[in-house]
């Protein structure tokens, strides 16, 4: 049903996702975690994916790079990186991609690092496997990388085990591993969630700097609208497995179209608002993805919902105000309206 009018900009799209769905078989029934998502990312740009817990951010970003356990999962649609198809492709093929063109940073570096091995060895191993470096060169390069990601006394720190480093340091090590083989596309899933604000700023600064140097394309998954506002070129808002709004970052924050996005913004406490400012909250909870409601997935919580909303799911469409501003809502805010189809 939802088909995004692909905007034919003669540009260099490194990531192209078309009608991608990811469904898990669960004991309660099938759960559609990613529901018919289409998006493109231009080379060198960063796309923020925001949404609340369980909205499908992680499953979508992992689906795009093929990093999901296939056992209880089925997928339809397509996702390509640099023209290489990811969906339905053998693990062996994907391995080549992960080592070179694609890299990932996770929220919890502790689970991604091997606890019993020195961090320098873990970086060096990736260099030896993917870049076929000699043991000696890899070791030297690993120390170089640790220096590059801002770890003080990198020679000494390369001999540390993960649990001997702080959370911020471990995330820097993860970033060193991610950039070790010179990827073109980086997926960072909540890379600073759980870190203190000053460390978060350091890590985000580091990622921005590395991106600029290497013209890296990035997906930044986060639940923090503040991080998205300051660190991304474009934003996609997810709700119940769908993209419900997508726009260039400044445009999105200036002219929200979708009531859910507005709800998220209004319920976020801000340090530039006076103390005791009453937050407007969204009542209720996101729908159960095993038994999603008919119509708009946000309808049960939406104060603007009308009959149509409960019957018919709104498609993701381009706005007449800005063709790059997409929204999925029958009654959009701020003067947005759907562009006539095929225009």
């Amino acid at each position, binding site marked *: 049903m939802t088909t995004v009018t692909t905007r034919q900009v003669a540009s260099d799209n490194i990531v192209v996702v078309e009608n991608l769905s990811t469904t898990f078989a669960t004991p309660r029934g099938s759960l559609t975690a990613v529901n018919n998502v289409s998006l493109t990312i231009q080379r060198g740009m960063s796309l923020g994916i925001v949404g609340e817990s369980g909205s499908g951010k992680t499953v979508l970003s992992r689906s795009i790079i093929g990093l999901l356990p296939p056992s209880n999962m089925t997928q339809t649609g397509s996702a390509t990186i640099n023209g290489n198809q990811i969906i339905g492709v053998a693990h062996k093929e994907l391995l080549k991609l992960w080592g070179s063109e694609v890299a990932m940073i996770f929220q919890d570096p502790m689970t991604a690092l091997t606890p019993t091995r020195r961090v320098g060895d873990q970086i060096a191993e990736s260099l030896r496997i993917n870049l076929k470096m000699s043991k000696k060169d890899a070791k030297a390069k690993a120390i170089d990388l640790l220096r590059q990601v801002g770890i003080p006394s990198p020679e000494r720190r390369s001999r540390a085990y993960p649990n001997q480093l702080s959370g911020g340091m471990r995330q820097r090590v993860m970033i060193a591993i991610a950039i070790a083989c010179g990827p073109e596309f980086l997926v960072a899933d909540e890379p600073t969630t759980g870190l203190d604000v000053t460390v978060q*700023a350091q890590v985000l600064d580091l990622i921005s700097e590395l991106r600029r140097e290497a013209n890296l394309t990035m997906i930044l998954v986060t639940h923090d609208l503040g991080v998205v506002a300051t660190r991304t070129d474009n934003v996609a808002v997810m709700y119940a497995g769908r993209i419900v709004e997508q726009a260039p970052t400044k445009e999105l924050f200036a002219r929200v179209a979708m009531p859910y996005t507005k709800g998220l*913004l209004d319920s*976020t*406490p*801000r*340090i530039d608002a006076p103390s005791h400012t*009453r*937050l407007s909250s969204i009542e209720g909870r996101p729908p159960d993805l095993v038994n999603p409601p008919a119509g708009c997935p946000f309808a049960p919580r939406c104060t603007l919902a009308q009959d149509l909303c409960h019957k018919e799911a709104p498609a993701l469409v381009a706005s007449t105000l800005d063709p790059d501003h997409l929204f999925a809502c029958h009654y959009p805010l701020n003067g947005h309206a759907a562009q006539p189809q095929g225009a």
Partner: protein
Amino acid sequence: MTAPLLSVKDLVVTYGSRKNAVQAVAGVSFEVMEGETLGLVGESGCGKSTTGRAILQLERASSGSVEFDGEELTGLTRGEMRTRRRKLQMLFQDPISSLNPRRKIKNIVAEPLIIWGEADEAKRETLVNEMLLEVGIDPALAGDRYPREFSGGQCQRISIARSLVANPKLLVCDEMVSALDVSVQAQIINLLTDLKKKHNLTLLFIAHDLAVVKNVSDRVAVMYLGRLCELGPSDDLYAHPLHPYTEALLSAAVVPDPDVQLSHTTLEGEPPSPINPPSGCRFRTRCPSAQTRCAEEVPELREVRPGHQVACHFPLSTTHVAIGESPNAQ
């Protein structure tokens, strides 16, 4: 705001012993006035939770005093403390694991009433049902169910019901909304604000999120490596921070608006280990304004603007006080 309900003076809490001793709280003093919300903010490991736990005597102070409602708590035995707990409740970050998984919701909420001797079962049931309704949980639907059947936000509501059912005076909230999604977090913050007013509660609100702390607090205390850096009225402290650490924290925070470019002075490095804290000012190893005196002399908290205290030899300049002007009496 009238008299202090809680006074913490020169509180020191030490973990471990001898060589491995860590002063997690290293001489902290503040007061919480009756009916006010004091926010306590700082980065992980700075001693916020330890301070909260020491107030409830869940950790014992090595020195210093904790006076609550006119009574010194630090010398009390566990048994004596148990009876005081009726007036002094704590709420935690992880609502699901802080509720007993094998007990029904109605029994969980009734627990404090049983402990504090509300013998009449019918009266207990009425109180529990009223309290559940107040936090937005339908007692008829939820009473006989177990915590695992509820979401994080609902479990936090149930925890609030349990903590309020015996009519306490002071709530110590430790990161109680940190694990919740923003829409649910806003629901819980609003609920807490309303209940505070209705029940005339006093709150010590501990969190690392600067925006959340500002939203709920009348005054805010900023903590670094076991000591307070600054304490003042929320709006004043966020608009005109006096301590270089407060300023650094605020400039690292993000706002959901791409057009608001907060000044961005990134603080280098991470807090040093509390095992071997820097001499003098504990922030000096990362402070952009540090001078020789900072290594030699511990800055004490002093009032430099009405109701606004700072522990720094060279506070950020303000229009009200020239640097070096003699501090007001504490």
